[in-house]
């Protein structure tokens, strides 16, 4: 799997199709594993999606005392294995992005697995497939790099030039996550 989950927060229109679609994925038990939140509804309707970063050395897996969180050969960080998870919730506290969810009824953790049954065949995960604004994409590494360069180029077209006080505006506000 050379593809990358690529988030571009500002494209998000807050439709939450990604959440609905997450429930549709085969192994997902009709429970979504991703998030869409308002930045501040009082101020504006801007929302942003949040999903697992599929970290290289994932905090959730590292803090799991039962070794229940497995990482596939492609680098996808899976939900805790049912038979191993002891329900301690360490992973939910350990993850710096607040991703793993906890099912209090079943006493187990569940999280985004990049729709592993799809992504292992290079088919886009459900959220990235349906997202109408392309705030979430599943694209090649090269395409991601091109998109990042594009942002700077667009700013040049608009006639802007980075200066000390606003150079952060020229850094793409989005980032890619990749798994191998």
């Amino acid at each position: 799997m050379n593809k990358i989950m690529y988030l571009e927060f500002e494209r998000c229109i807050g439709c939450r199709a990604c959440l609905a679609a997450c429930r549709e994925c085969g192994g997902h038990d009709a429970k979504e594993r991703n998030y869409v939140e308002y930045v501040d509804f009082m101020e504006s309707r801007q929302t942003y999606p949040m999903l697992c970063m599929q970290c290289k050395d994932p905090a959730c897996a590292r803090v799991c005392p039962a070794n229940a969180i497995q990482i596939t050969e492609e680098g996808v960080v899976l939900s805790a294995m049912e038979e191993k998870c002891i329900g301690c919730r360490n992973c939910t506290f350990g993850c710096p992005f607040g991703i793993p969810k906890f099912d209090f009824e079943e006493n187990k953790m569940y999280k985004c697995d990049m729709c592993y049954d799809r992504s292992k065949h290079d088919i886009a995960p459900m959220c990235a497939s349906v997202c109408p604004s392309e705030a979430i994409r599943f694209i090649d590494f090269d395409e991601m790099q091109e998109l990042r360069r594009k942002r700077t180029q667009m700013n040049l077209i608009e006639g802007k030039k980075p200066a000390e006080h606003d150079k952060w505006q020229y850094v793409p506000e989005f980032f890619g996550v990749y798994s191998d």
Partner: protein
Amino acid sequence: MSEFVVKPGVKNLVHDDEKLVTTHCSYCGMQCGMHIRVHKKTGKIMGVEPRYDWPVTMGKMCPKGVTAYQQVQHPDRIKRPLIKKNGKFVESSWKEALDLIETKFKELQSKYGKDSLSVFGGVSMTNEKCYLVGKYARVALGTRYIDYNGRFCMSSAAGGFIKTFGIDRGSTLPWPELEHSDCFFMAGSNTAECHPTSIQWFWKAKDKGAKMIVVDPRETPTARVADVHLDLKPGTDSALANGMMHLIIREGYVDEDYVRERCNNYEELKEAVKLFTPEYTSEITGVAVEKIVKAAHIYGRSPRSVVMFARGVEQQSKGVDNVALYSSMALLRGQVGKFASGVATFTGQGNGQGGREHGQKADLLPGYRKLTDPEAVKYISSVWGINPEDMPKPGVSAYEMFDEIQNGNIRAMHVICSNPAVSAPNTEHIWSGFRKLDFLVVSDFFLSETAEFADVVLPATSWAEDEGTTTNLEGRVIRIRKVIEPVGESKPDWLIMKEIAERMGKGKHFNYDNPGEIFEELRIASKGGKADYSGITYDRIVKEDGVFWPCPSEDHPGTPTMFKERFDTPDGKANLAVVNWKPAGEYPTEDFPHILTTGRVVYHYLSGNQTRRIDFLMEQCPVPYAEMHPELASQYNLSSGDYVRLTTRRSAMDLEVRITKAIRNDTVFVPYHWGKELAVNQLTNPCLDPVSRMPEFKVCAVKMQKTAAPEASLK
């Protein structure tokens, strides 16, 4: 023909025990492509798979589309006919239900005449069914009283387009071209929530530097990223459009050659917009002068621009004028009939385009023919095999049918695929009409608020249980496929109409065994009309990714771009709109000091009869609310989560408050997808557009009062 249509090289996930059936979403005019997953052995619908290769939507779906399949085998489905006995619905056989309908219909017609029956149609169904509704009313029942819910949706767009261009096709250009436009002028469209999957095209264009001008009283997700957000007062679009044209002319942005060759009324228009200086426009609309000027410059300088609008400008008592004025902006710039530019409305209902073309409207016959045109009557009568003298005369519009009920002229109604008890304005008038009827039949697949009033409810199939076509918001005719056999004893609407026609002694005019045969008849009926489908076949639709009407012969490629050479008016020229400013039917007064506007949320569709039953959608948005600016809220000591009583001249209702700065400080917004005491249409104004008979859902005067939270039972 295979049911699973996919282009070479496109990968989908297909489980071994499942098959995919290729179709489109049941809901809005985007008609997003999708495959539905069906379990091979059990026939159970398992879910949805994106249709990555559908060129309009590329696999994207909104949350309604993703969950649409959950309607089909939903436990709430009506599976057998229901007859009301002693105020309670009792399941019955089809025979008993049809016997009763036959007796009642015949009895009422012999007592009160043919026109005592009426039909209220809808456009969330296939072209085949929509076509048949008109024929059913006029041939099977022989009544003049037929109209449909598009009256609350697309009729102003239709009226404005016919006036301006001579023909009513929602978009003059195909959607994928939007990517190449330089500027979008979008008025009264909350695109991100109402037509979410078109956002990909706007964002793509924006990535290349396209500009966006958004006209809306609320800072919608599109307004938020717009280059200019013209935050006008609801109901002042005609002033804004005139103001824009004033500047386009003053600043020399008019394509003079184009206007000279292709448009009428230019001198009159120049005269009419003289008055609309930015200052005067700003006074009426409440939009800052600088913003109006900036928008005019951006729009005026863009080489390729598209003017787009939706219900925000259309659901007004000046809806037709608004459409004609905004369309004229595009004409002044010489944009219509060219690549990646033009005019478009966002069609609300799945088949809002196709469904309005083939004779469900009080005054129209198939192919967009006029019922007042004797030639049209003659032609359609010959297709239907009736005497032209027997063709009923034009009836009245949807809302006015309820006046006819009150007048005692309409005694019975058959509502097909619609829920006016929620979606019509001033709902109390509608409810009282339903109560007054001697006999009400409703065909639906869920028990809607309208169905609750019925004497007989007939179980119709959902969109996934029948073959057919719809016409999406571009004007592209596309293919809907049957995914499973009808649930329970439900029947497709065409079969229900056929069976009632047989009972009424008109069976020979309804001799169909499948929707394909109806489509063949529709092709002939529309031949030579404005909306000409005669060259379109089911096979072509599959091979060509849909076919755009007009398509007058099988070797005609269809018409993705309209008006390349001429307009469809008698002289081939477009008519620029010359319209003076007129206020909305109601405006704020001392007693009713604020403006109420209504609209959709992304999670629900129309009257909510379908989407209010889907878990995911209800979790996201279970009840309506009143959205307002903190400045307005603080005048009434309201915080988010408090309750407010909204009162208009029609009625009052209590709603939870949601506060955001993303709305004008004089306007309250309430979404409309709920029924009964949660229906904001209790409050809306039935002030009708004089041409389209569209009610003014988008503007009325309201007063507010803080109130206690309702009893738990109401929540």
